């Protein structure tokens, strides 16, 4: 007779019997656990590097960042699995941090049945699996009560439960240490899924992130603060447009008046004309200091703008040259018979945006290109509003169309504007009886309405067809690195 031993090295009938009892206990007394199964890191070939490779097969064993040892872009099974689990419900208290309210003891220890998990999920639970506890749904959160807020956790550690060993010394339970998830890059594929209503149907244009995350609220609060900051100081420097500069005779110190009997009376100052008197135009602003130039003439006088001075100017005409950076304001002075610099528009919006162009940010907010490998060039006199350009060069295809007049450059990618029938568009490059014809395209605006591109200035434009372009903004570490074999 063998010696008595409850331990058995093999998974025998005793083990199976106990395991079924344990499974039934979870089925009878456990709670539903919805599992979002982690599938692996999401990588792409486009930006793959040696230390951040692209994996041909998505696998839970892939490591996205081999340097920092992180899996940031995680892919989850769109199928949600239901399992059973047990845990001790704890009292929760909120801790107020600099990032808002957190649950102080947000860690739960969930026990699940090993064999059931393997049976339903197909593998052992791992760190990164996300679970939802449906019994913790909050039906009365501070939303419009259309949605119940689900409670999500991410598996933080996986081990065998000490209480899950049977008398045969074989384990039956996993113990998962779970923490509350955050709305972060790691779980974006879960939170970007549509939210579901009470019937479980997806709600249009509403994601889980919209109903669960503090992101939208935080952004709107941030926007409000930035709006106030912009109200306090819309631009760098100082606003002086509300102030009046009195024109004074430099010799007598007396105010300069223009009267109706003078032929040079400026009709644009009609609002200032009272009886027979109007103040003269000062030659410079009376309010000087750090960053006060805004490109506007003093006292609100009318001004024109463009990239070349107008013909036949009158005395004290103002003109803003927008081809200068910063834009430069000029005043026409008949005494010197020329345009005199008044000021540079140096005031700048101080809010970070994609167009801000200070000395430093002009190196960052730069989406311009330089064009090389010209295959066709022509010089043509164009008029404002022109949309079709008939060149004298032979028909030639290319990758880019570049139109240049003084400092103004219009550039188009040929492949972005092919021939279409609806709306009817012949394509940007057309063979017109053997000569190259350029048809300016229609480009969507911010409201996605197609806007016909036109020639903005009259003059002799340079037409250039190129086959290469380089982005002006390149990282310091990659600019002009070798592009060919040595």
């Amino acid at each position, binding site marked *: 007779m063998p010696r008595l031993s409850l331990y058995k090295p093999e998974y025998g009938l005793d083990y199976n019997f106990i395991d079924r009892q344990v499974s039934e206990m979870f089925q009878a007394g456990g709670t539903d656990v919805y599992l979002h199964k982690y599938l692996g890191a999401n990588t*792409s070939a486009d*930006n793959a590097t040696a230390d951040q490779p692209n994996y041909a097969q998505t696998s839970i064993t892939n490591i996205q960042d081999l340097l920092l040892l992180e899996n*940031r*872009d995680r892919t989850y099974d769109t199928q949600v699995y239901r399992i059973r689990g047990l845990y001790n419900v704890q009292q*929760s208290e*909120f801790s*107020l941090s*600099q*990032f*808002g*309210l957190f649950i102080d003891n947000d860690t739960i220890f969930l026990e699940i049945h090993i064999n059931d998990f393997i049976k339903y999920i197909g593998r052992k639970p791992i760190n990164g699996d996300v679970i939802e506890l449906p019994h913790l749904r909050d039906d009365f*959160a*501070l939303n419009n009560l259309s949605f119940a*807020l689900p*409670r999500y956790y991410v598996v*933080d550690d996986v081990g065998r439960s000490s209480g899950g060993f049977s008398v045969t010394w074989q384990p039956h339970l996993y113990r998962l240490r779970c923490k509350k998830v*955050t*709305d*972060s*890059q*790691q779980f*974006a594929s879960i939170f970007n899924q549509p939210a579901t209503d009470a019937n479980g149907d997806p709600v249009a244009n509403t994601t889980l992130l919209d109903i*669960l*995350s*503090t*992101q939208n609220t*935080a952004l709107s*609060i*941030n926007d409000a*603060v*930035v709006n106030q*900051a*912009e109200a*306090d100081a819309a631009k*760098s*420097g100082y*606003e002086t447009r*509300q*102030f*009046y500069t009195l024109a004074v005779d430099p010799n007598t110190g*007396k*105010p300069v*008046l223009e*009267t109706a009997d003078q032929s040079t009376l400026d009709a644009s*100052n009609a*609002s*200032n004309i*009272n*009886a*027979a008197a109007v*103040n003269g135009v000062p030659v410079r602003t*009376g*309010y000087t200091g750090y960053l006060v130039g805004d490109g506007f003439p003093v*006292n*609100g*006088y009318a001004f024109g703008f463009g990239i070349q001075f107008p013909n036949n100017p009158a005395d004290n005409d103002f003109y803003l040259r927008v081809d200068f950076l910063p834009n430069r304001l000029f005043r026409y002075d008949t005494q010197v018979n020329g345009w005199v610099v008044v000021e540079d528009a140096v005031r700048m919006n*101080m*809010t*970070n*945006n994609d167009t801000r162009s200070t000395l430093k940010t002009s190196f960052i907010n730069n989406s311009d290109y330089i064009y090389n490998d010209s295959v066709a060039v022509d010089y043509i006199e164009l008029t404002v509003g022109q949309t079709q350009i008939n060149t004298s060069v032979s028909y030639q295809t290319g990758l880019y169309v570049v139109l240049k007049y003084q400092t103004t450059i219009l550039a188009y990618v040929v492949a972005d504007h092919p021939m279409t029938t609806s709306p009817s568009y012949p394509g940007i490059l057309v063979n017109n009886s053997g000569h190259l014809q350029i048809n300016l395209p229609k480009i969507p605006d911010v409201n996605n309405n197609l806007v016909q591109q036109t020639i903005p200035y009259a003059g002799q434009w340079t037409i250039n067809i190129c086959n290469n372009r380089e982005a002006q903004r390149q990282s310091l570490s990659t600019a002009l690195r070798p592009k060919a074999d040595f």
Partner: protein
Amino acid sequence: MQFFYDGQIRRYLTQTIRVLSNFVVKYGDGTLVRVPVMYGDSDRQVGSIISQNSANAVASVPRIAVYISGLDIDHSRLGDASYVGKLNFRERDIQVDNGQQTYNQAQGKNYTIERLMPTPFKLTMKCDIWSSSTEQKLQILEQIMVLFNPSLEIQTTDNYIDWTSLSVLNLSSVNWSSRQVPVGTENPIDIATLTFDSPIWISPPVKVKHLGVITKIITSIYNNYQTDSDSYVQGLGEPLTTGTSFLSDLLSQEVTTVSDYIIQIYNGEAILLTSNEGYTPREPNLDIPTRGGSAAINWHDLFDRYPGKYIAGSSMLYLTQPNGTEVVGTFAINPLDSTRLNVTYFADTLVPNTGIDSNGYLDTNQNYNAAASYRPSSPGTFDAIVNPQTYNPGTPSVGLRLLIIEDIGSSGHTTEAWGSLVAKANDIIEWTGSQWHVIFDYTHFSDTMVWQTNIYTGVQYLWNGVQWVKSFEGEYTSSQWRIVL
């Protein structure tokens, strides 16, 4: 002390949050996600609202929190606490069209601003960056830290008057992570902390005043001065005071005004004259003056040099009288001729008319009895100035008074129009209901000034002992008039 609060430190927080706003992180699929920035010391209730009052709400990562960790006075930047900086401003005029206020191109109100020396402080702020991965932290820090070399300029306002608005954020330290390596069994969130210090100023309110332009300087030279002895008497406990000096024996006085113009007041109008120009006659009388020949001067030339904004019908003219009082009127530029002002005088600022009763007593005489006179309700006026040799009064109402400019009648003779009246030019006569009699005989008032208003024209006249003249009209030197816009 009265309450004042301008939210000055609050604006530094606002601008610091602005500096750190609108940075993004890039997910692996190319999605750009903005990093929200909020104040890091929120109210617990607001924290609950943001998390939808639910333990199930999910905090978004990455996040940036900004909060103040220190505020210390900066002794190295202390300045003269009593220093007052002044700035003068002219605003553009505002016009209202359909309820919409817009600036036009004319001169509006003007002001002088007085600013007291502000107190310097050093403000220390922390910026906590919560990221969900090291790569995310690297993305955020690389974008932010490139701005600090080592400082970033910030402005709390773009107000030209605010001399404290400009400051800088100095990146004083970077705490790479709140976590330790090795992490251990727990998995705390990762927070990088940037510490900024900023030299700031806290300022009391400014004083906004009317534009402080000196428009008149009086230079006086005296030949003598006396000093009172103090009033301190030993043993009586009276306060010890210093003696006061009094200047006396004025030798000369010169008044210089912003324009040095003199003005001619006539018939409700005011006209500017240069200092060496004059009207004929210069002294006021009943004649219409004629200009000396210089070019007319535009009143705008003067208004532009004065503080304030000319407002037709509201701006005021002050005329200093020989007795030290001032005649005051509002004015408006003649719309057809901007060299002329139309002036409307305040009746209360004119010298009161001298009452004359029917017995010829002035109101300064103890026998004066206006109530018993034929003109009890208006004893300081007459009804018209007439030439008795050409004017026939007919049958007037009782109490009618006339100032005559020619002699009439002689003793023992009567005239058809005036009966037995005998009067001289400059006399005032009155109709009793049955006859004319003289109530003001100028020969009795060679050393007395008498003011009377001609009801017919509304012009007040003054008997100066020699002749009737308009009471305040005439020419005023640069020191005898002023305007308030």
